[in-house]
């Protein structure tokens, strides 16, 4: 488990290193066009702070990368050579692992529908779908959630006068 976490850290730190290097070399010069009319101090422009941050992130992630790499080598040396059988992956287990991503995808669909068909319809569709996916079989719970959503709607529309889509 620990070795898996360390391996994960190596990948994440390498990713941050690449992204910060990209920002330093490409995105900062291309995304921040300095104003010629700016007559302020030339030692500090709009690019300086982002440059400092990108360099800082690169340095810190490099340290993190090296630290994780050293831990990985150490753990590899001490790790037992006997390989345990990989845990049997049942459909249920896979679904359980994927659930956060399924829910996230549902949230994205909800937001798109929120814009296209409006708050009421999209919420009416999303709520039962999410609860059903999460194995909620108590119909009363569905009603409670709808009641709460109705209250939210009334507060924002009637009290705050916010025109929801």
């Amino acid at each position, binding site marked *: 488990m620990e070795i898996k*976490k360390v391996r994960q*850290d190596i990948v*994440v730190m390498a990713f*941050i290193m690449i992204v910060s290097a990209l920002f330093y070399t490409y995105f900062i010069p291309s*995304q*921040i*066009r*300095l*104003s010629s009319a*700016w007559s*302020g*101090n030339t*030692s*500090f422009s*709009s690019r*300086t*702070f*982002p440059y400092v*941050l*990108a360099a*800082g*992130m690169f340095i*810190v*992630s490099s*340290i*993190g990368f090296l630290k994780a790499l050293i831990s990985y080598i150490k753990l590899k040396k001490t790790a037992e050579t006997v390989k345990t059988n990989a845990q049997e992956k049942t459909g249920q287990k896979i*679904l*359980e692992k994927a*659930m*956060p991503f*399924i*829910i*996230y995808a549902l*949230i*994205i669909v*909800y*937001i798109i529908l*929120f*814009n296209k068909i409006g*708050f009421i319809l999209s919420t009416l569709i*999303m709520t039962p779908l*999410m*609860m059903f*996916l*999460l*194995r*909620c079989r108590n119909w009363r*719970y569905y009603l*409670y*959630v709808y009641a*709460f*959503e109705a209250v*939210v*709607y009334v507060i*924002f529309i009637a*009290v*705050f006068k*916010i025109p*929801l*889509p």
Partner: protein
Amino acid sequence: MLQEIVQSMLTPINLIMMNIGLAAGIIIGALPGLNVIFAIAVLLPFTFDLDSLAGMYLLLGAYCGATYGGSISAILINTPGTPSACATIFDGYPLAQKGRAGDALRAALVGSTFGGILSCFALMFFAPMIAKIALKITSPEYFALCVFGLTAVIGLSEKNVIKGLLMGMFGLFLSTVGIDSQEGVQRFMFGNMQLLGGFKVAVVMLGAFALSEVISKSREVYRGETGNANIAKFGKSTIKLKDILKYWKTMIKSSLFGIIIGAIPGTGGAITAMFSYNEARRSSKNPEKFGNGSIEGVLAPETGNNAVTGATLIPLLTLGIPGDACVAVLLGALTMQGITPGISLFSSNSIWVYAIMGGLLLINVFMLLQGHLFIRGFVNIIKVPVIIMLPCIVVLCSVGSFAISNVMFDVFVMAAFGLIGYAAKKLDFPIAPLPIGLVLGNLTETNLRRSLMISGGNPLIFFTRPISAVILAVSFISLLMPYIRKMIDKKKAAKAQAQV
């Protein structure tokens, strides 16, 4: 002036908001896994159309309520509702098992109120003094203070400094998106005019703290884990107030710990609660009772953690520097209301500042009343299944982020930060430095720029001025704190082993 302050405080809408915030805070705090930041972030959308005072009262109510609410689940189900209630379980749950849950809850309530009120007085007394000193602070010192605000949060509260630093820098980076206020230049907008004003703090908070919680909780819910299986029976309180107040020394001591620790950026309720509990046990006449159901063992951490609430506002109101992620959300809310906390606030809007302080005092009084009258109702909240909350949070986050400027773009940004928050949790990256970096970014950059202008581009200005040099040195040390703590623990363990 006093009349004006009282008048601005005691309007019906303000009093209602204080109580709504408190009730919502207690409910959210009582639910395991949902913390104080979550409570404030979720209520944030409701403040957009409120007057700044009413909005702040709502959030401050949630802040105090959630800090106290964490004790309810700590006492009844042996799970701290918030990290601040981590020490309350040591004696709260044993008391509940003995059928004295009501007594433990009352002790927690009285302690929380006592700590909260004392903390308000500290805020009223110290904040104006610090504001006067702060008037003499110049850009290099201000920059150093911003650095300290961020590094203290990373070093004192999180174990992984590297990941904390990266998260803080990411927050600072996000603050650079949009129009640069000094030069009027566009930065990292990628042709999207919606990013002209940069990322909205409230949108980022809703995504990173609230939506990410939905995503990560979904797996537990699917697995059928709700965590509320063993709820201790709620026995009516029989303890008298005088039996609680006889521990007045412990209460005062814990409050002082809370005030001192809370005023230091990066600390917070959890550290204070542990510190207060250990000190109460050390100085108690009956230390053997600790851990087996001692009222004093509940009082100490609960007094300490609520004593943090007023103290954390000292650096926020005087310097505009948030001490922790909860206060960073409050700062975000203030900014959206057009109020810039800091030195000038005391001179330009002093009535507002004192109304906030007075309101906090009133909130603590209301907390005592609500806790006393509705405790049975709050206890029942623990029984609410998490599955009901998840779709409600999604709707609230979506509507809330849309309501900020009536644009769908913000809702998508919120969703993106929901994923970032979830990924951060999975990869053990602390989230707290992200909002602090985001809200401190502008202040940090402005003061860095001004300092370098003064020095003609020489960065040594931060080290040649004694105050900024000392603050930067402390910042560096605070970053090393986890390593120092590890070394001390190792030495202690080696010593103990040698003795055996």
